[in-house]
């Protein structure tokens, strides 16, 4: 049986690249791509949701990945 797990996703079009998510990510799974928008490395993300609570633009959400 495959266990479903959560991971963070975001819409880069509305990202203001403030870096809040980068600062709070305990797994260093987020970086600012080309200095212009946040990018999430799903393989590192553990779905803790800290970035979701920190993002001022509320563009990060948790999704279930099979």
């Amino acid at each position, binding site marked *: 049986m495959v266990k479903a797990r959560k*991971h963070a*996703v*975001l*819409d*880069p*079009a*509305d990202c*203001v*690249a*403030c*870096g*809040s998510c*980068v*600062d*709070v*990510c*305990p797994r*260093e799974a987020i970086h*600012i*791509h*080309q*200095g*212009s*928008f*946040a*990018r*999430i*490395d*799903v*393989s590192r993300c553990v779905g803790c949701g800290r970035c979701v*609570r*920190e*993002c*001022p*633009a*509320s563009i990060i959400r948790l*999704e279930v990945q099979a």
Partner: protein
Amino acid sequence: MKRHWYHYLWIWSVLYFSLGFFNIAFAWLGLISFFLPLIFAIGFGNKAFCNRYCDRGQLLRMLGSQLGFSRRRDMPSWLKSRYFRYGFLVFFLTMFGQIIYTTYLVFAGASSLQEVVTLFWTIRVPWQWAYSAELTPGAAQFAFGLYSLMLTSALIGIITMLLFRPRSWCVYCPMGTMTQLICKAKGDGTIPAEESVSNGKE
């Protein structure tokens, strides 16, 4: 969480407002916060200033996130909307233009130096102790105007940090909006197709 040297740049914000409180000449240093993001955006096409080197961003992160002063509520959608962000940018630039015009009037001798700091563009706070004769009246007028703008925007940032998320200011920061537009223009204004949906894959 790994701490980097730029996480301590909030010290610059505290230093800037403290120095300007005693000597308004230091307010001129506020121009650094105007030009550096533009240099990053125009020169390198990125917002590295916003996400790393912005002293105000680091101050809001430190107060709201590290010290826990933020309520961490969602910002109202109108405050995040593009209409508000672009509108606030236009308003901010207009106010900056007004500072330059007032400075010109003092330089030209058509107006006298106003030794006041204007908060929220309306409340005039006497600030005469911070002025000494080493600055010409015109240069001092610009310093008072810039200090007013910096202090007002910092207070607005702190209010939205307390009410909403720590770096709520970054969503509608006029410099951030301006550099975002520059970065988009430099990068064709588009996000690569593979990034446009959820950017879940590295």
